[in-house]
């Protein structure tokens, strides 16, 4: 589903965010991406979501070669990649419902279909009773769950998460991970960047470790 082939990302000024990274993630796989800060975790995720383009090498997602994808087609690619951020990136002047509905409205779904799907997504993250609330009144864990609902509401085949449990206590983090496992069970391909080694050690999933932009280890090794 996601494959990197000798991918290098060099920023203006010569700094290399990623150097010659190669790996392949099967459809329906769930993997963690870890490494010290600045190791290139976010850069790697950005390449998959086409927030940035690789300098060298090939990135393929769902059979599409992102290196050659025309800029005008980027939005359609992003609709198939759900993204979850540490800082949630919610719109604080809109209700929880409207936040979660955004991907569907952007994709031009009909009104009644939007309502049905948003409620299903909110139900999955146990926030059905908060749909009319503004995100600012929610706790950090709840806001993160709104972000997750938004990422999965349009049922994308790929979901990326960048430090989704960064600001949460262990119990809440565990809850979020359980949610991810549930999505994975219905066939979603997940790639989760985190530096919470203890958490991913318990999950017994594939782990990609980056160090200074290079893929240091790849496997389901206990850390």
């Amino acid at each position, binding site marked *: 589903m996601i494959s990197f082939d000798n991918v290098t990302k060099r920023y203006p000024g010569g700094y290399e965010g990623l150097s010659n990274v190669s790996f392949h993630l099967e459809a329906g796989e769930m993997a963690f991406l870890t490494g010290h800060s600045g190791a290139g975790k976010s850069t790697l995720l*950005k390449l998959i*979501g086409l*927030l*940035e383009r690789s300098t060298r090498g090939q990135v393929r997602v769902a059979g599409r070669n992102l290196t050659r994808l025309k800029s*005008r087609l980027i*939005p*359609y*690619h*992003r*609709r198939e990649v759900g*993204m979850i951020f540490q800082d949630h*990136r*919610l*719109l604080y002047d809109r209700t929880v419902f409207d936040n979660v509905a*955004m*991907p569907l409205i*952007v*994709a*031009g779904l*009909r009104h009644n279909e939007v309502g049905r799907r948003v409620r299903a997504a909110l139900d999955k993250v146990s926030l059905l009773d908060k749909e009319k609330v503004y995100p600012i009144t929610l706790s950090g864990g709840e806001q993160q769950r709104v972000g997750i609902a*938004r990422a999965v509401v349009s049922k994308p085949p790929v979901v990326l998460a960048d430090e989704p449990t960064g600001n949460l206590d262990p119990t809440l983090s565990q809850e979020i991970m359980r949610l991810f496992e549930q999505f994975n069970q219905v066939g979603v391909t997940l790639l989760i960047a985190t530096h919470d080694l203890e958490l991913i050690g318990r999950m017994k999933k594939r782990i990609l470790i980056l160090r200074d932009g290079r893929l240091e280890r790849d496997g389901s090794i206990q850390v």
Partner: protein
Amino acid sequence: MDRYRSKVMARHTNKKRSASFNGRRHLRLDSWILRHLQVALASLGRLARSPFSTLMTSAVIGIALALPAGLHLLLGNIQQLSGNWDGAATISLFLRQETTQQRVDRLVKEVRAKQDVTSARLITREQALEEFRRLSGFSGALDSLGENPLPAVIVVEPLTETPEAAEAMLNALRQLTEVEFAQLDLQWVRRFHAIADIARRGVLVLASLLGLAVLLIVVNTIRLEIQNRHAEIEITKLIGATNAFIRRPFLYCGILYGLFGGLIAWLLVTLSLSLLDSPVARLAGLYGSGFHLQGMDIAVLLLLVSGSTLLGLGGSWIAVGRHLNEIEPS
């Protein structure tokens, strides 16, 4: 036979395909219109949530447009007024000295009988002398002449609207043998028309400049709006919104600013005219005229409102084109 059958089948499937294609197209057109309607309403709602700043921006646009619109209207009114005066231009026919009284009387009748003459009035040589004596103060000098040097004059009021027609008539009357000299008192009308032309050009220049100002106002307003909604634009791009999707609310915003500005301009012009109307009517009354200021007619109103709406759309288009692409999620 086989060939025929395959042809028929091909036609059949083509028909089916095109029908379903049209159906889908229809559906998509429906939802396209619906979506635009939703965005337009949402933009209206957004403007309504900050009524003060919306009113400020629209008022600035309105005032900028009211100026040329009002001047245009005023100019139209003045021209209408001058149209009345054109008709009042008179032709003076100075007759030859040797023309007999009998001949003069017949000429007056002839001129009066002409189709395009409203009236013709004779000033006899004696009347002319009398008037000259009264007005000039040269009575002593005239007495010493012993003979009346003044010709008889027929004052003709033509039944024409335009200076050109009056001039044509002047040339026709000049051909009469008894007429020594004919004069059309049109100089001032011509001057007035020339001044009106300059004024019209001036209004055009002013309208262009203020139109440009309106465009820049909208560009700036939308630019600020884009800056304010930076985070929102970034997030919407992240979840896969196309540029067209992101552009749309801003374009509608510009359209609405233009529309409101146009309506405010109309309101301002109408108010100003109604304030001016009664003193103008009083002044016209003093000149014995029933002149009233003409308000904005529907064609000018439509031109004003559609023009300002287009300026709004153009302005927001420029702002969106310049600033929306700068925002990319990171």
